[in-house]
């Protein structure tokens, strides 16, 4: 089996709105990622994309319109969608094609637009939202008028705190730690320093989660070049190998019917598959980018991925063992809470951070000597996860 490596990466800073039309942003990023890989556009033989916006703008035939726009003649292209896993699955498709030896240089392009000018039209917004709610949460939960999936995550946080005899105050160091990393990341959406007291006094969103326990509304885009090692070798950068990808889905959308709400078993199952394939263990991981969209979720994920015993991650964060004082550094990008969370593109932002960390080019947020990186992404409420293991080639 051919190895698949990441040869080039590019991403724009995360912000409330995209700086330009999504087609212009995607085009710039494709050229930037190809330049990073040292490849001309004519060498691209695969294009795998997310919808331009996960919810909102239609993604109908976006891979075709983008390929047309870029003038790409490929032997494989597709638009992939599975909630927050979307960009990770577009990447996975490219990796599989390269591993199978069918394709040699694939562009993966992800974007999300969460703030849309049309949303300023209240009537348009409400009508679309009421219908989308039933589509997204189903004809049962969708009738209760959920404004976002936050209530599910809030109740998961409540159960986690309840079962482990923790309190809201134990969540605050997560937000503060991630913000400290984001202060050093020019791509991060939120870079103003915050204190634990500010996290605890922030306006409530859904108790026990307050404003600073949640990721903010964000747009963003990223592109990645996945190539075979011989193609990547021609570039100026150190390629990063995709050692393993694990994936697992539970038969539940948002809240599971019987399993505890405080657990995210899909993350553990996906991680076990990836660790086994790569013959690595959590202790081997130098840097991890995980899909923690809320403070409590972040803690549960560190545990499910095998880094800490159940109920112990909050102590590890407080003691600095997740931010340089332990074997693994978590979310040095600032994570979803401070780098920002343009959901459709989030997993590619994680890939960009991991690749830059494994190349050793992250300046003052560089994890010293990082050689193994872990990607975690999820859809819905952690009911489906993908875990990737990367290693400096």
């Amino acid at each position: 089996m051919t190895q698949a490596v990441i040869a080039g990466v590019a991403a724009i800073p995360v912000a409330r709105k995209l700086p330009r039309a999504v087609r212009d942003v995607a085009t710039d990023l494709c050229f930037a990622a190809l330049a990073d890989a040292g490849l001309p556009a004519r060498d691209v033989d695969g294009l795998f994309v997310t919808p331009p916006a996960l919810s909102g703008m239609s993604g109908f035939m976006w891979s075709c319109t983008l390929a047309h726009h870029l003038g790409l003649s490929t032997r494989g292209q597709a638009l992939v969608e599975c909630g927050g896993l979307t960009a990770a699955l577009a990447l996975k498709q490219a990796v599989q094609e390269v591993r199978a030896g069918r394709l040699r240089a694939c562009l993966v392009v992800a974007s999300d637009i969460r703030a849309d000018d049309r949303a300023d039209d209240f009537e348009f917004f409400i009508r679309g939202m009421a219908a989308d709610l039933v589509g997204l949460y189903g004809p049962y939960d969708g009738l209760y008028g959920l404004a976002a999936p936050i209530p599910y995550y809030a109740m998961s946080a409540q159960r986690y705190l309840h079962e482990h005899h923790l309190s809201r105050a134990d969540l605050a160091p997560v937000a503060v730690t991630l913000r400290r990393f984001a202060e050093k990341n020019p791509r991060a959406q939120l870079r103003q320093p915050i204190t634990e007291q500010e996290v605890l006094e922030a306006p409530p969103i859904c108790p026990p989660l307050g404003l600073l326990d949640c990721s903010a509304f964000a747009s963003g885009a990223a592109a990645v070049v996945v190539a075979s090692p011989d193609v990547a070798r021609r570039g100026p950068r150190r390629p990063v190998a995709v050692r393993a990808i694990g994936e697992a889905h539970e038969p539940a959308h948002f809240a599971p019917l019987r399993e505890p709400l405080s657990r995210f078993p899909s993350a553990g199952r996906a991680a076990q598959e990836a660790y086994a394939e790569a013959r690595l263990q959590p202790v081997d991981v130098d840097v991890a980018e995980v899909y923690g969209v809320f403070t409590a979720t972040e803690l549960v994920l560190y545990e499910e991925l095998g880094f800490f015993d159940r109920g112990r991650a909050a102590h590890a964060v407080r003691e600095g063992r997740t931010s340089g004082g332990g074997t693994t550094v978590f979310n040095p990008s600032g994570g979803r809470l401070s780098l920002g969370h343009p959901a459709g593109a989030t997993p590619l932002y994680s890939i960009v951070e991991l690749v830059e960390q494994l190349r050793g080019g992250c300046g003052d947020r560089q994890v010293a000597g990082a050689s193994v990186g872990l990607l975690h992404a999820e859809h819905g409420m952690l009911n489906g996860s993908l875990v990737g293991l990367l290693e400096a080639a």
Partner: protein
Amino acid sequence: MKELIDAATKEALLRYGDAACEEFQRRLGQGRLCSTRCRACREIAFPPRDFCPHCGAREAEWLDLPRRATLYAFTQQQRGLRFLAPDVLGLVEVEGVGHFLTRIDAPFERLTIGLPLEVAFLEICPGVWVHQYRPV
């Protein structure tokens, strides 16, 4: 604005719902919280299905669920779409079924995990019903 939300909700129910959802709604309108049980393996599904998601059998029968529940988790939306604040939501545990999302018709401050609850019904717009729970 309520008319807009109601119209969009009804349209979406037709688009995203199914036959079991329609029957569930009809029974809610009669003051009954129901779901389906597999004729082969006897597992109760929730929400209802016209097949069994546990063993794959195609034969399922309707049954009334217990009216009592306990509070498994709860929160409050500051900005919901349908109910004005305080918009209290919870997951309730029904014996033999599992936990599922519902509206809690009680102040957030009165609630604790494990609180005994009883089901009630609310017509959110003409012909569309939801279950909600109140402390016993």
